[in-house]
């Protein structure tokens, strides 16, 4: 075979993203059917998407408040990205796995993960995080982009076990510059791993805007280089994010391999509660972006379709408020653990040396506390 022979067996043009991002809902809530991206949801499911977005927004706001009240060390808000996260996660089955970054409260809500437990990471409570195996929702990945590797590896492991699950890695526009997602996508392509790489392009990576992050035409175009289809969608349109992800997930589950999705959205809040965006972007830009609010648009759609009336709207708001209160109480009441517990999960078994250090710290703390009370 000649050296110039292409490695893949696919026509590269079939992998290209569409000329325009997939978009099913207009800002006024008008729905456009797209035969390539069917929305196969019943009325309850359509309402559930709304419920998840409203709950997400409420708990996200409450988490910011908790940080301001000194209850959390830091918090990364997803304001504006509800449709991207909820629509994407809704396309997964219960057995599938999510590998999040640090901004995925919306995906967590959709998976049914306890929001209070999610916040313990930011509070630093010891030994109280959620159990990843319960809702198939992995640990938040704060080192940028690493979760893409975990998702690809998990998918390869599941395939090895003939377990028909799909994994989904959420990461940001900035993360696409790291080696990790690149290497994860290379592996996923070669091993046809059932993984969906879901990029929330929220236009910013802390202070760096997208045009300083990449010279690619779109992030979705990068998919071609790994031999997987690139999808491009309006990330503030929850039906589009759902339908596009659903297509990628079904394909991955069928054994046809991975996909890359770019959902266009906007980070409406600061990068985290420690950040001040006025250093690098204008208020005007933020105000423009706020006009594309994903919840407003979806609410208009549901109302047009007769799926949401004032009563139901209030009911959803009340549910969201109750969830936020429950989360808040959990955080306020959470104790900081015993320092001795810090040794418990470093290794499966204690080594001799390790045991000694536990004793040394115990003795020191006991001596100190003795002195304090004396």
């Amino acid at each position, binding site marked *: 075979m000649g050296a110039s022979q292409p490695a893949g067996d696919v026509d590269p043009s079939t992998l290209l993203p569409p000329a325009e991002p997939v978009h099913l809902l207009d800002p006024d809530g008008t729905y456009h059917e797209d035969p390539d991206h069917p929305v196969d949801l019943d009325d309850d499911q359509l309402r559930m998407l709304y419920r998840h977005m409203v709950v997400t927004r409420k708990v996200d706001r409450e988490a910011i408040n908790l940080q301001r009240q000194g209850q959390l*060390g830091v918090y990364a808000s997803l304001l504006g990205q509800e449709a991207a996260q909820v629509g994407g996660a809704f396309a997964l089955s219960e057995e599938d796995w999510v590998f999040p970054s640090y901004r995925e409260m919306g995906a967590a809500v959709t998976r049914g993960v306890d929001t209070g437990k999610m916040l313990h990471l930011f509070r630093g409570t010891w030994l109280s995080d959620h159990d990843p195996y319960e809702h198939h929702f992995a640990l938040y990945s*704060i080192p940028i982009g690493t979760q893409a590797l975990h998702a690809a590896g998990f998918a390869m492991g599941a395939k090895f076990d003939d377990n028909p699950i799909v994994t989904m890695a959420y990461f940001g526009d900035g993360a696409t510059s790291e080696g990790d997602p690149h290497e994860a996508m290379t592996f996923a392509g070669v091993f046809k791993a059932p993984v969906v790489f879901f990029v929330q392009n929220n236009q910013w990576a802390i202070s*760096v805007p997208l045009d300083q992050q990449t010279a690619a035409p779109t992030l979705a175009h990068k998919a071609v280089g790994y031999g997987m289809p690139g999808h491009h969608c309006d990330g503030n349109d929850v039906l589009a994010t759902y339908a596009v992800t659903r297509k990628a997930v079904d394909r991955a589950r069928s054994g046809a391999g991975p996909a890359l999705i770019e959902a266009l959205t906007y980070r409406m809040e600061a990068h985290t509660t*420690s950040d001040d965006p006025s250093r*690098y972007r204008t208020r005007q830009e933020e105000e423009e972006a706020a006009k594309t609010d994903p919840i407003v648009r979806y609410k208009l759609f549901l109302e047009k379709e007769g799926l949401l009336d004032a009563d139901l709207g209030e009911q959803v708001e009340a549910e969201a408020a109750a969830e936020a209160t429950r989360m808040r109480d959990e955080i306020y009441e959470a104790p900081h653990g015993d320092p001795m517990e810090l040794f418990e999960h470093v290794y499966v078994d204690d080594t001799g040396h390790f045991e000694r250090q536990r004793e040394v710290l115990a003795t*020191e703390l006991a001596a*100190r506390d003795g*002195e304090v009370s004396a």
Partner: protein
Amino acid sequence: MAELITYRDAVKRAIAQEMRRDDSVYLIGEDVGDAGGVFKATKGLLDEFGPVRVRDTPISEEAILGAAMGAAMTGLRPIAEIMFSDFLATCWDLVAVEMAKTRYMTDGQVTLPLVIRTANGGGLRFGAQHSQAVENWAMAVPGLKVVAPSNPHDLIGLFAAAVRDDDPVLFFEQKSLYPTKGHVEEGEIVEELGTAKIVRSGTDVTIVALASMVRRAEQAADELAEQGISAEVIDLRSLVPLDATTIIESVVKTSRLVTVEENPRLCGWGSEVVSLVAEEAFWHLDGPLTRVTTPHIPLPSADALEDEVLPSVQRIVDGCVKAVS
């Protein structure tokens, strides 16, 4: 006239001092420009030096260090920022396998006069993946110089020395020190790498400390004085080169040694200092060589818990009492 400035502002002043002096010096890293660094330590540099010499990059630590290494080969003197020292792990190949070996493998023909600055260590409740004190990783690699200042004055002087040095230097800024203040005189400040400083003299025990642990060691020395124990405190300032002479001379005088290390216990830098003293000053010793370190665990992020495990003033005092009795 000496001015009182923060460790954070000392970073900016140090970089500006070197960039004004030498056109071949430039700064590259994530969010170092418009945002002025996530710790605001590079604020204002973009305005003064412009986007060619103060460069924001896409998020790739490996490419940042690759750019710095390549530029250093062309004769520039890059300053590369790795936002948190934990992220050195994502680009450790460049540091440990490439930069550290280049001069050696080219028979000295290629030098890499670059500095990697990074926010290191705990104390700000950033948790297990953003709080590691990793100076001992760097110390374990032949070919790297390793510096960790404890105060604004030393930061400027050692930074200038690092920029002017022809070897790759890892420059650890202890992130909990950023808001702390110290006196700094006007004008250019340049110090010498590999020189420890005796910040307090004493006769009964030598305490060797680094970066954020220096202040705590001094506080411990105050408490020890009340108990009638006279402690000498050495600010090590750089791990490579290591100022063995200052350490040995002090131990010869005091006959006791305590190291105070923020890094986790196993193979922390103090184990090197302790073994050096055991070999070279053994017959002068009158007490157990003692190390006060963080236990061999990842750091917790809750405030109370983090404070329990980082070496406290009390633990340093206890360590010294043990060494002396």
